[in-house]
């Protein structure tokens, strides 16, 4: 529980809560990038450099921009005129709160709190590469396949349907 962790956690939480609660969709995405960046900083704090930078590269550099593009293309930018929450928002928030209570209860009861912590480690890039190329080579290949399939699928989905001329 260092000060750094508390600051970063507050930043991340503020970003995520704002992302879920703001009226303007673009503001939501910008707040979301703050949350993602905070998470990346938390990964760095935990010593996972590679994952932290990948997080920034993928989420801030790609996913947020993609979301922004879709918001622009569906013309849903600008403050919403109708209510932003659906009619059953009460049920939804109660469910989410219940999930959090259960998770928090499980975490506090689990005995992690009294566990002796191992010394800090630094995940160098080299062992990650080694692991990806030896132990995890099959998942890596499948991941490549999945990404290709997703790319083709996204292109097909988002492509304009061409009118067939007789």
């Amino acid at each position: 529980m260092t000060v750094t962790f508390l600051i970063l956690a507050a930043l991340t939480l503020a970003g995520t809560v704002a992302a879920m609660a703001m009226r303007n969709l673009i503001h939501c995405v910008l707040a979301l990038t703050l949350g993602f960046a905070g998470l990346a900083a938390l990964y760095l704090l935990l010593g996972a450099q590679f994952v932290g930078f990948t997080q920034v590269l993928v989420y801030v550099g790609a996913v947020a921009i993609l979301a922004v593009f879709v918001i622009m293309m569906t013309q849903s930018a600008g403050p919403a005129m109708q209510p932003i929450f659906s009619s059953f928002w009460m049920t939804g928030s109660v469910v989410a709160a219940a999930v959090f209570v259960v998770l928090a209860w499980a975490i506090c009861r689990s005995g992690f709190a009294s566990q002796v912590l191992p010394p800090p480690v630094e995940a160098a890039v080299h062992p990650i590469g080694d692991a990806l190329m030896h132990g995890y080579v099959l998942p890596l290949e499948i991941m490549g396949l999945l990404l290709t399939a997703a790319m083709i699928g996204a292109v097909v989905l988002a492509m304009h349907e061409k009118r067939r001329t007789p």
Partner: protein
Amino acid sequence: MTLSMFQAIDQIDQIFVTSQHRLVSDLPAEFQSISSAILSVIAIVLVFALLFAITTVLERKGLGRMQNRYGPNRVGPCGFFQPLADGVKSLTKEDLVPRTADQLVHFLAPVLLVMAAFLAYAVLPVGRNMVLVNLNAGVLYFFAVGSLVELAVFMAGWSSRNKYSLLGAMRAIAQMISYEVPLVLASIVVIMAAGSLSTVSIVDMQASYTGIWPHWFVFTPWGFAGFALFMIAATAESNRSPFDLPEGESEIIAGYYIEYSGFKFALFFLGEYLGMFATSAMAITLFLGGWAAPFSFLTWIPSYLWFFAKLVLLILIFIWIRGTLPRLRMDQLMSFAWQFMLPMTLLNLFVAGVWHFMPAGIVRWLVCIALLVAPAILLSRSLKQGKKFAVRHYRFAE
């Protein structure tokens, strides 16, 4: 050469490192690391801001000479104090914010842009032992920070509530994302060869010599192709001519920073140039041996001088290209990225593999060059295909 001479050369080379140590060593132990970091940050900010100032005046003078003009020659000797005058002007100008603009986002965009541009310098080794942080995943960090620029550009374009700025931002983002793929793929060959993502160890690998010749990656077929592809992608990534569509003055006035004035505009300018320096510096680190001297008998010149000499050389090439090439069209830009750059960078990865596994010798050179040149010609042919340009006859404009 005697031993003392070697020591003297080494001392001059390491003068900044040792003076930083000396400055910090008087402080109490808990402040030492943070104050040395702050010193390095101040040095980086000052040096690269100064380089920005010099580059603006060099660019304007160089472009002027290429167009048979004088360029700025009024302020100070030969116009070299022009950036000072520009700075004073931009500081004293009114800071206009459109009434309908998203005030907070409009303010944050230039700040984020400059911040992202400066963050990238943290992993660039500007000299022997002269790097702010030697990150394990330095190259990855560089590209991650670079992706923040896209967000800043979008924020600027969207928050201005202006059609031109939004169009410019969309163009800029589409272009940056398209060219980030070849940029990263072109640098992967070096990472493969060096076996490390750390910029420091990549430079260390290139800082040895066979006879008088250095081991720079650019002196291999895949390295040269990678360097060329990297520089093309870097030109597009930093929105420079001939890929300066996002700010195309003749079509969308100034693109995403149309609604910025005064110092915020200057910040955009600064951010753009800093991005250009950073990608050039990355190209130097990856392909041109970073701070290493080009010949073994020139190693007595301090390493940081070599780094900045290479940087200035690349900047001059950027200026030269800007003075020469006209702007591309949007569809040409995109098809160039996906139909030429992407296949070539992927092929380059393959060639690097071939180079690695073939026995050293002339055959290896020939095979790799053939593997690169033939597809390049075929691809450039296919880019041109179906677009036969006839001589155009004008009815009224003759």
